[in-house]
């Protein structure tokens, strides 16, 4: 049905054309789900955009053929191409929170889309819209259709997005990371829906994702991309199970396994991988940290911690109902061990991290760091030792570093702030040494955050946390914004640093496979309550709580 041959996409720039996609062949049959997998920058989304004719200017298709059925997609005029969009090719975007117009009801958006491609009367269009919503699993569609997008939950919203892509009966749907923003439970429902639609309606899907687990679960065929070229293509079991190319193999190895724990991740030998710098100055940072590590290992104990947020006030006479984010949570992070904290979005993982770091005020409960009382946020003075001892690594490396500061200043800040090093030159030297310790070039010290990739930025964030000489590290989804190979590198680094310096770590993640690789102990959070806690391996082999079992069974397993 869809046949792409020798597709080449170029982006003109001042220094000549940049070739984003080169000579890509791709074929999708009706009813087939074709996975496009690769790391960021591999050109997955660019291929999708080229097929539907929505390349970001100034990008253009410079070579190759694209045919859908009998139609040559490249020879369409702009207005013909716009008519084909929706009618013959549709698209599903990554984030259901942002891909619907917030000011229009779902009904208006559906009817408008149907009428854009047919002469259906408003009533016919409405009936069709309702039946499609019912088909994709929205109960009570006749009433729900009147709602605005924000009145749907994330998973339901993605269903609405799918309904919008579907309502014009297209032959091909390009799904660009359709489940990346969703929780595992919702993800598996949406993937099931996509598979069902492919089978029953004979729609061809191009499934663009960086998550190999998703591909393994639903794709019939798969194409592995790297830097705009096809590395390998074929039936999914063959490509992922017996990869012919070294890159595919390396990519598969970098995927965290849910079914067993490995000591280290193997990382694909990528151009970006740091060429292990000569360990001359890195030793300095190590020695300096060791000095700090001479202090005893600190564990953390949380007893009956509750956090409530004020709800929205609806009447002057009623007190606003409090929203309970954490409900009497108790957990223990043993000294020099890693506690993995898992749970769906909204379960209170990050709230717990913020309560421990003293960023939000818990309504009740006790926290103890290394046997000593850890006062809650408002009672914890700015110069309390715990403000130094507990450090945090955030999820998004793009927003957690001040874009206006040089790396050297970012790194030297904790040294000055906590009075660890009075001399300015020494602070700079230590910052450089620490960069080396996190496997980056110390000469990077005078550059700005935007000059680095996500993985490098996350290393900088780790270095900054370490420069406070912490004993307790909170990592809140530290790798969820990173590619698998980069994720593997960063996780390896974290593991090494943890064992070397005897850090205690609270490792927060929604990705169970990652947590299995990282943690010694585990705690499962659901709607603000601890459902299960205990030894990590025991949890993964024999989970006891029903919720844990469900969570584990929904996580896409890698059969290959």
């Amino acid at each position, binding site marked *: 049905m869809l046949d792409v041959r020798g597709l080449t996409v170029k982006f003109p720039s001042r220094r000549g054309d940049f070739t984003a996609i080169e000579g890509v062949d791709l074929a999708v049959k009706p009813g087939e789900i074709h996975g496009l997998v690769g790391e960021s920058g591999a050109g997955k989304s660019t291929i999708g955009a080229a097929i539907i004719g929505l390349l970001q200017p100034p990008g253009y298709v410079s070579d190759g053929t694209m045919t859908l059925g009998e139609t040559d997609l490249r020879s369409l005029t702009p207005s013909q191409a*716009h008519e084909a969009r929706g*009618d013959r090719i*549709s698209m599903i975007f*990554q984030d259901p929170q942002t891909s619907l117009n917030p*000011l229009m009801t779902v009904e208006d958006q559906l009817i*408008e889309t149907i009428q854009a*491609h047919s002469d259906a009367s408003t009533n016919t269009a409405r009936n069709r819209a309702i039946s499609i919503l019912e088909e994709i699993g929205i109960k009570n569609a006749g009433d729900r259709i009147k709602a605005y997008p924000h009145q749907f939950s994330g998973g339901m919203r993605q269903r609405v997005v799918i309904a919008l892509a579907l309502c*014009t009966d297209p032959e091909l749907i390009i799904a660009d990371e359709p489940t990346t923003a969703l929780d595992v439970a919702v993800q598996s429902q949406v993937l099931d829906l996509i598979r069902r639609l492919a089978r029953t309606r004979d729609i061809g899907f191009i499934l663009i994702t960086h998550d190999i687990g998703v591909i393994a679960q639903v794709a019939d065929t798969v194409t592995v991309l790297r830097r705009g070229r096809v590395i390998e293509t074929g039936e999914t079991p063959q490509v992922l199970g017996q990869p012919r190319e070294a890159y595919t193999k390396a990519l598969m190895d970098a995927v965290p396994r849910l079914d067993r724990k490995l000591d280290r991740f193997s990382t694909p030998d990528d151009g970006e991988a740091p060429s292990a710098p000569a360990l001359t100055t890195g030793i300095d940072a190590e020695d300096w940290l060791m000095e700090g590590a001479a202090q005893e290992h600190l564990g953390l104990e949380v007893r009956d911690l509750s956090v409530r947020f004020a709800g*929205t006030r609806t*009447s002057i006479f009623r007190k606003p109902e409090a929203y309970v984010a954490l409900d009497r949570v108790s957990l223990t992070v043993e000294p020099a061990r890693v506690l993995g904290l898992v749970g769906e979005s909204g379960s209170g993982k990050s709230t717990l991290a913020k309560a421990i770091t003293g960023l939000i005020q818990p309504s009740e409960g006790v926290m103890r760091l290394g046997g000593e009382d850890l006062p809650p946020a408002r009672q914890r003075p700015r110069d309390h030792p715990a403000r130094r001892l507990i450090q945090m690594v955030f999820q998004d490396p793009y927003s957690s570093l001040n874009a206006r500061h040089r790396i050297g200043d970012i790194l030297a800040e904790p040294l000055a702030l906590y009075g660890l090093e009075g001399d300015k030159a020494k602070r700079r030297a230590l910052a450089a040494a620490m960069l080396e310790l996190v496997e980056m070039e110390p000469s990077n010290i005078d550059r700005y955050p935007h000059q680095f990739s996500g993985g490098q930025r996350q290393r900088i964030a780790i270095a900054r946390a370490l420069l406070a000489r912490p004993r307790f590290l909170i990592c809140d989804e530290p790798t969820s914004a990173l590619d698998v190979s980069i994720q593997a590198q960063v996780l390896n680094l974290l593991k090494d640093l943890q064992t070397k310096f005897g850090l205690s770590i609270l490792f927060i993640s929604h990705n169970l496979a990652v947590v299995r690789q990282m943690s010694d102990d585990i705690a499962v959070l659901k709607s603000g309550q601890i459902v299960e806690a205990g030894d990590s391996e025991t949890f993964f082999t024999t989970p006891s709580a029903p919720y844990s079992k469900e969570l584990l069974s929904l996580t896409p397993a890698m059969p290959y």
Partner: protein
Amino acid sequence: MVYFILKRLIQSVFVMLAVALIAFSLFRFVGDPVSQMTGVETSVEDRERLREDLGLNDPFALQFYRFSSDMLRGDFGFSYRTRQPVSEMIATRLPATLELGIVSLIISLLVGIPAGVFTALRPRGFATQAILLTTLVGVSIPTFVIGIVLIFLFGVQLGWLPTFGRGGTTDLGGWTTSFLTVDGWRSLILPALTLGVYQLTLTMRLVRAEMLEVMRSDYIRFATARGIPYRKLHFKHALSNTMIPVITIIGLQFGGVIAFSIVTESVFQWPGMGLLFLESIRFVDIPVMGVYLVVIAFFFVLVNLLVDMLYILIDPRLRVKEAS
């Protein structure tokens, strides 16, 4: 929703009280009202008696209470200069300023929004660059220069339009309007243009910036991918989302237009509030200045309240949050 409006109303009352306090302090502490009212030959005893009679020896809070409750009843006191009630003076001047402000706002919206949309949809076109450049020149020139240039061009050289005053006005039971006579409209054009140019540029640039932002958003990309006709895409999907932040600024700006029409009014000798304020400053007519302050603040508060309600009307997210 009701609660939300109620909350805003209560906030507005406090804002008005604060402004009234400032106006009252101006009245009470800038200079001595008694010596303003009396001549040199008034004896000290007479002054003291007057002071006692006028209640100026009463506690501050009591005086302020009296001042505010008088204001509430519409009793704004008397002008030092003309001996007329201030309420009458304001009432004769207010329509002129409001009409001028509204017309200039409409001009700026009618031109600014389409121009903003156009320049956002063709960000690289020649016309876009030309529009951006001209309007940049437009804002860089001070208002009074624009006014004088317009007067010179259309009033003096071409002789098409009158250059000062309101021209023919019609009295509609206390509200004098220029809208009902040709002459009134002719007089209105130049000052409204002068006042509107700055607004226009601001509105246009704001619409353009927001629209560019919205056009990059996922829901516009998704709507494009669904093949929604471009007209609907631009004017239904994109424009309504663009207007949410723009409305706030326009609202604030309208308050500003009313308050700062002073320059334009004096260039065109427009008999509005601004001109009244200028005259009052010249004669240290403190009661008029104080009332001017309160009336302008009242308009600011009113416009902001309206903007908040418009917000709820446009954005369903706010509506539902307040209702649930």
